[in-house]
């Protein structure tokens, strides 16, 4: 039973915190989002130079072969500073999926992902499938040179910034069958691909996709033909766990700022933190933070284990972190009063980020359903 970070992880944690302090305080964040800037290529290059984007890439491809716990350390800092860069794409999707690319661009692409010059994300959902990863009706027809892809994808995290998309499409089967799904790597500028970039309430820039007869080569296949579901499932589970750490960072920051506010804001002649009802609320927020952190640890340990309860633990964690983090963020707004509702404090932005974290890859209700289904299976 060990929940301690290693010395290397502590150094990484310090590095992320220092970077956030130097480059990512809230006024800088606000100035960037106010100018409509999402992804800052200059900062992104610095992050790559710090090695963050190589951390979880395989050693044989020049990466550091890091674990989900390493990703957790970075993502907590990302959540805390509300960072806007495509970390999940680069530290989860790229290193998990690119090594399975059939074609020869694999080495070059992994290098580009680590250098921050290529962003690769996964299009995980379709309009009629809600959050069901297996609900793939995008079709992949065989052609002489490879495959032709046609269909709609409702979500690709950070898709507006992506240079490449991993697109699940059906080479056989139908409906929500897990078998028959194949993953394809599609370049952003591929003819027939329309990328509908959109800004979310948290200023992250995602995308939905329309594929209208997009031609890809046989080398664009990731993993085995018809066997893509397991790979996508694993990539999404790793992404979920990374997002949980981001949620923990964001909710703890919102909680800490609220605690500070309770100690300094005066009403009726005393610090509002002296009012018992608000004290108890703060305690419930603190408990929620403890629950979320504990759940995130369990899921982070589980995701790379062979435990048969692995998916249950991840679903449980996604559900509970969603609930507790939204509780904390909503109460943080409430306890800040009018200022909590303004755009000028970070508090409201934490709430918005946490709403979007809860949404991505299935919200708390969806994961409670997945948990119950896995229980019954």
């Amino acid at each position, binding site marked *: 039973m060990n929940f301690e970070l290693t010395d290397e992880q502590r150094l990484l944690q310090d590095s992320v915190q220092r970077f956030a302090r130097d480059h990512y305080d809230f006024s800088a964040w606000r100035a960037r*989002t106010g100018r409509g800037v999402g992804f800052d290529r200059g900062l992104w290059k610095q992050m790559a130079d710090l090695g963050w984007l190589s951390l979880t890439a395989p050693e044989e491809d020049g990466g550091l072969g890091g674990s989900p716990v390493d990703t957790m350390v970075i993502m907590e800092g990302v959540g805390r500073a509300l960072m806007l860069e495509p970390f999940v794409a680069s530290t989860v999707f790229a290193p998990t999926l690119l090594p399975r690319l059939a074609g020869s661009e694999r080495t070059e692409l992994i290098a580009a992902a680590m250098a921050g010059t290529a962003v690769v994300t996964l299009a995980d959902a379709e309009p009629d499938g809600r959050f069901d990863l297996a609900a793939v009706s995008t079709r992949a027809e065989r052609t002489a040179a490879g495959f032709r892809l046609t269909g709609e994808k409702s979500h690709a995290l950070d898709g507006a910034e992506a240079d490449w998309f991993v697109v699940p499409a059906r080479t056989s089967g139908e409906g929500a069958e897990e078998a028959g799904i194949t993953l394809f790597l599609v370049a952003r500028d591929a003819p027939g691909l329309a990328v509908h970039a959109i800004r979310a309430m948290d200023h992250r820039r*995602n995308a939905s996709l329309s594929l209208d007869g997009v031609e890809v080569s046989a080398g664009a296949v990731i993993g085995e033909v018809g066997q893509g579901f397991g790979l996508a499932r694993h990539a999404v589970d790793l992404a979920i766990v990374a997002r949980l750490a981001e949620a923990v960072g964001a909710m703890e920051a919102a909680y800490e700022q609220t605690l500070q506010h309770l100690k300094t804001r005066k009403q009726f002649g005393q610090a509002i933190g002296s009012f018992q009802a608000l004290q108890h609320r703060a305690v419930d927020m603190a408990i929620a933070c403890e629950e979320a952190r504990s759940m995130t640890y369990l899921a982070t340990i589980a995701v790379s284990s062979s435990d048969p309860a692995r998916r249950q633990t991840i679903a449980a964690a996604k559900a509970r972190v969603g609930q507790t983090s939204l509780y904390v963020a909503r109460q943080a707004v409430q306890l800040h009063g009018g200022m909590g509702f*303004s755009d000028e404090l970070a508090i409201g932005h934490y709430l918005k980020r946490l709403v979007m974290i809860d949404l991505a890859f299935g919200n708390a209700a969806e994961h409670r359903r997945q948990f119950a289904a896995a229980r019954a299976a």
Partner: protein
Amino acid sequence: MLFDRTLMDLDLDPADRAFRDEVRAFFTENTPDAFKARVRAGMRLEPHEFVAWQKLLHARGWGAPSWPKEYGGTGWTPTQLYIFESEASLADAPVQYHQGLELIGPIIFTFGNAEQKARYLPRILSSDDWWCQGYSEPNAGSDLASLSTRAVRDGDCYVVDGQKMWTSYAQVANRMFCLVRTDPEGRKQAGISLLLLDIDMPGVSIRPIITMDEIHHTNEVFLDNVRVPAANLIGEEGQGWGYGKVLLDRERGVTAATTMRLRQQLRGARAAAAQARTSQGALLDDPVTADRLAQLEIEVIALEGMVMRTMAEAASGKDSGPRASMIKVRWSELLQEVTEFWVETMGYDAAAFGPIGNGAPTEPWPMMGMLYSRVTSIYGGANEIQRNIIARRALGL
């Protein structure tokens, strides 16, 4: 079905039934389609739309449903008011903007002098004046009695200096009612007066505050050596705290009418759930989703029951005690839960807030409504303050 008709069918008399039909026809014919999606999500209209709506109602003679006839109101019974609000809700018609109509208007006709009544009331009804509220200050939010904006008498004027905060729609208002400290000595609540300002008076300046829903609803207002004619004083100098409290009570009362609109948000959420697809079919056919919606609908019925009792008691001249505060608390909580549920039903569609760049949002009403709902448990006395008030006034704790 319950949510598609009014509960009042239970015991409406024929006259009320006829009134209902009349109101229903009016709303059906006159509610602009452009308002509906926005209103349904619990968002407010744009200011020019508020003005147009008020002028429409005024033309019909319904400009001030809650005012006595003497001042241009309808003189309706509580049952009629309940019907009016229910039918507005059913038609996705907007609420009227309340700061002139429900807040300062009644203060003017109750405590103002004849000249003030003649000057201001008709222009509220016709929506020629837009009033904003100068109550809160940076260090006087829920603790209003701590306000520090000062008004010093100088000849036939007060000279006002200070800063107001959370002044909704100051950017479109031409009038402002303002709590100021006319006597710096004595107890905090004493020495406060209620003054009427014109926004174009020299020394008034406005800084926008953008809120979480990315809308410019509200402002800081700086008052720098503003000379306000002494004739703009409401009632007596130093009695403003009392008027202010009457007004805050009225503000909570406004919530009773707004509560009838929760059905709009429920309808929106239900429609979204019916539209949302899962790999098993419509999301609304998922028993867990249907169960959660049922819970929200049930809680809304309970709250509507409280509103009906409050209106019935008002009709028979009884004081409903703390129920207005209770309704405010429950309404805001439910508005939050219903709009959260609505956004959840949307799945990944809820990720679409606005275009890339720094352009304005593309009218993502449910998400904006969900975000906006957070302030409803803060404004007009945060829910924590409402609970303090109930505990003290009604429970004797």
